[in-house]
């Protein structure tokens, strides 16, 4: 009844859950962290059905916590309506767990890092009413981009897995570029390592795991390059075998950037805005998540330049590795790095203009 789908970039995982939810006639909820992805899911629902089907509901993660977990039985814990989430403020460090100021600020907003904990507390204090109510409303809950969850979120997922509601968790642990909160609880399952938690759940009989190791988006050369970033993940098989005459991974000398852009019209990607990109309009790696481009031109950051030289990506920190993986896997046909010098990686070609 419960399953976890760990999917490579471009494998069409979001389309898959949209189709599954649309085609089944049970009442379903699709939850995802970001507003962008929520829009994307809605767009795909329209694409599949022409309308938003009545039996499918889409929500962001925090809306899910607020409207389904916290507010219905919030008065078991706190006398006021929890107005919203305080995304930026930090709770008072020495507040006790029993006091409401541990969770909620003076404007009745719940602290981002404590939202899942408050949600669980509402369920627990009300005698599991939250889950009973949810089971009345939804037969199945899909959680997309599950790698974005951390801390108490994982306890909440576990509670859902153990409930009467069917649960499908979908995500790509290599794309953990940002998180719903900053909690340090369960740090060992953070981001890429969330799969270890999935394995535990599978061993305990809570769910089954499936790997989608193919990409409809990228060609094989791009897949192979992206697989180098996380060497212990399974290899990705490309389902894009188109030939455009300029396919694969390239090195472009900084002097040739303008002519490369004129020639191929790639989407320019940068790590963050500290990279000027020679004045070309660019998108941050992280912000490109979920998007598809025919070609990308990547301005590398310092450690990525070193990795291109040595062919070894071990020195990248978790989040930077995830962002690099995201940037590379955006392209259907070609990925080019702005790089002056040698590159030891097999299959990478130098572009000569």
């Amino acid at each position, binding site marked *: 009844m419960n399953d976890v789908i760990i999917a490579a970039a471009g494998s069409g995982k979001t389309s898959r859950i949209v189709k599954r939810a649309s085609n089944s006639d049970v009442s379903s909820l699709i939850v995802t962290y970001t507003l962008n992805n929520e829009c994307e899911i809605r767009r795909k629902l329209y694409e599949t059905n022409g309308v938003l089907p009545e039996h499918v509901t889409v929500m962001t993660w925090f809306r899910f916590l607020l*409207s389904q977990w916290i*507010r*219905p*039985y919030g*008065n078991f814990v706190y006398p006021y*309506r929890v107005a919203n989430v305080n995304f930026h403020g930090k709770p008072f460090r020495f507040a006790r767990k029993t006091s409401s100021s541990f969770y909620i600020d003076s404007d009745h907003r719940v602290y981002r890092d404590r939202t899942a904990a408050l949600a669980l507390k509402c369920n627990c204090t009300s005698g599991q009413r939250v889950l009973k109510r949810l089971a009345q*409303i939804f037969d199945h809950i899909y959680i997309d981009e599950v790698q974005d969850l951390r801390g108490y979120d994982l306890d909440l997922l576990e509670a859902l897995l153990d409930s009467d509601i069917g649960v499908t968790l979908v995500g790509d642990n290599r794309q953990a570029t940002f998180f719903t909160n900053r909690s340090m609880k369960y740090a060992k399952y953070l981001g890429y390592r969330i799969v270890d938690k999935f394995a535990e759940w599978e061993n305990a009989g809570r769910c089954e795991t499936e790997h989608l190791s193919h990409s409809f988006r990228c060609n094989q050369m791009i897949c192979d390059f992206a697989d180098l970033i996380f060497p212990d993940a399974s290899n990705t098989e490309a389902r894009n075998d188109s030939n455009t005459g300029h396919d694969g991974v390239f090195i472009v000398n900084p002097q040739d950037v303008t002519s490369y852009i004129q020639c191929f019209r790639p989407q320019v990607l940068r790590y963050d805005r500290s990279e000027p990109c020679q004045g070309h309009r660019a998108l941050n790696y992280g912000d490109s998540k979920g998007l598809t481009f025919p070609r990308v031109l990547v301005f590398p950051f310092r450690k990525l330049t070193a990795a291109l030289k040595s062919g070894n990506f071990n020195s990248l920190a978790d989040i930077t590795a995830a962002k690099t993986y995201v940037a590379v896997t955006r392209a259907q046909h070609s990925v080019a790095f702005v790089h002056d010098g040698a590159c030891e990686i097999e299959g990478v070609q130098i572009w000569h203009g």
Partner: protein
Amino acid sequence: MHIETLVVKNFRCLNDVEIDFNRELNVIVGNNETGKTTILEAINLALTCQIHGRNIRNELHPFLFNIAATDQYLRSLFTEKPQVPPSILIELYFNDQPEIAKLKGTNNSKRKDCPGVFIDIRLNKDCSQEYREYISNPSEVKSIPVEYYEVSWSSFANEFITWRSIGLKSLYIDTVRQRSSLGTNRHVVEFMRTFLSPKDLAEISLSYRGLRDGFANAPLIQSINELLRDTKGDITEKELTVALDVLTKNGWETDVAPHVDAVPVALVGKGEQSAIKLKLAMKKASENAVFLIEEPENHLTYSNLNKLISSVRDKASGKQLIVVTHSSFVLNKLGIHNVILFDGSNVTTIQDLRQGDQDYFMKLPGYDTLRLILSKRAILVEGPSDELIVQKAFLQQYGKLPLDCGVDVITVASLAFDRFLEIAKRMKIPTVVVRDNDAKVASLDKKYEVYSSLSHINILYDRNEEYPSLEQQLLRVNGRCKLNQLLQRRFEDDLRLLNYMKDNKTECALRLFNSKEDVTIPEYIKRAVSNE
């Protein structure tokens, strides 16, 4: 889906009220000015966020708030402990079913875990600065500062809602308020909106717009527009033409008028209008609707009312109906067991009325059950002559008529006594029955034994079987001589006098009632009057 409970606080005349409703039929009765109509308004408000067809947010005024609460608050401003300004709360508790579980939660005053919605009107906390200034001089504060109030319309899950998210439609049929022809039109169009599907509505709107577009293409209008075009430069540098305004999406509502037999509905009689509204609403197949019907008896003749109520009852199955009425007929027809007696703060209902009694009044709806239900104390008598003698007894003892003392003397055919008593028993209405002993004291004793343990019900008849009727009782205590004098007759023996009185019951009673002299009243009637 239906309303199980309504809770109202501080809304108009309803200070603090809680009412449980039946799954289908509910008939609210009560004296004037107790707030029966306000109950319907409150339900409609909580279901639609509207009052008189407009959004409550634009219709806030100080008189929406309970007067007692307002006074208390205004007085408190002069004391050391000023009160929180009054807030209005209306809660609707629905039955728990999965389809509406999204409205479920414990955010309600009873902390009950069930689906529901509430409307809450209170001082906006963001306006506390302005409010502080407003009350700084209490003698200038004459009313509640609704300008600083906010309205929140939420589910028991504490999520703000829209009318779509409730899933229970409210159909408010009010036959009381006089409307202008425009108002009636709007009212019926509102009904069409609930009756027609969104697709139908869109199609009306589209063809209406098409019609307006067509106007501009009519040859006559085109030639006028040609003419206007020639004025270019004189009036404006741009091209000037005429066309109908197609800017508003719902323009058709103001121009489309429902017709009955080709007569615009506004010109049809009020009674027919009410009936149309009601039937149109009832016809809609959806079970998720609550019908709020105010005084359906208005503007209708007896026979039309009969037809209307019968059709309402037949089509209501599966739907919830809340009817306010002043008519026994409506009450009896809809089932007296569905009555909700409302006195302004508390409700009384009839629990477990026998099926036979329910059917009896449904088949004989002419009985004035409502008079019994609304009376503070009732004296049930067998006929008009008994009624007159009881009234006379009252007048002699108190110098006032029974009604002036809050006592209702009701004539009930003797066969219906126990039907009425079953109602009085269950609704705890102090009731006295005054009747002839018909020379059957033993059997009467046995028959009324069931009421002997009830202190609020008293059955009175004389125990002497030699005087089985009222006339004999009157003769016994007054004597032939005095009765002859009171009735202006000269009968020489008792039997003839008695026969005369029996043949002219009402007329004799009327003479006795009108006589300036006191009439001696039989003991059992005296007891009924003094209610010892």
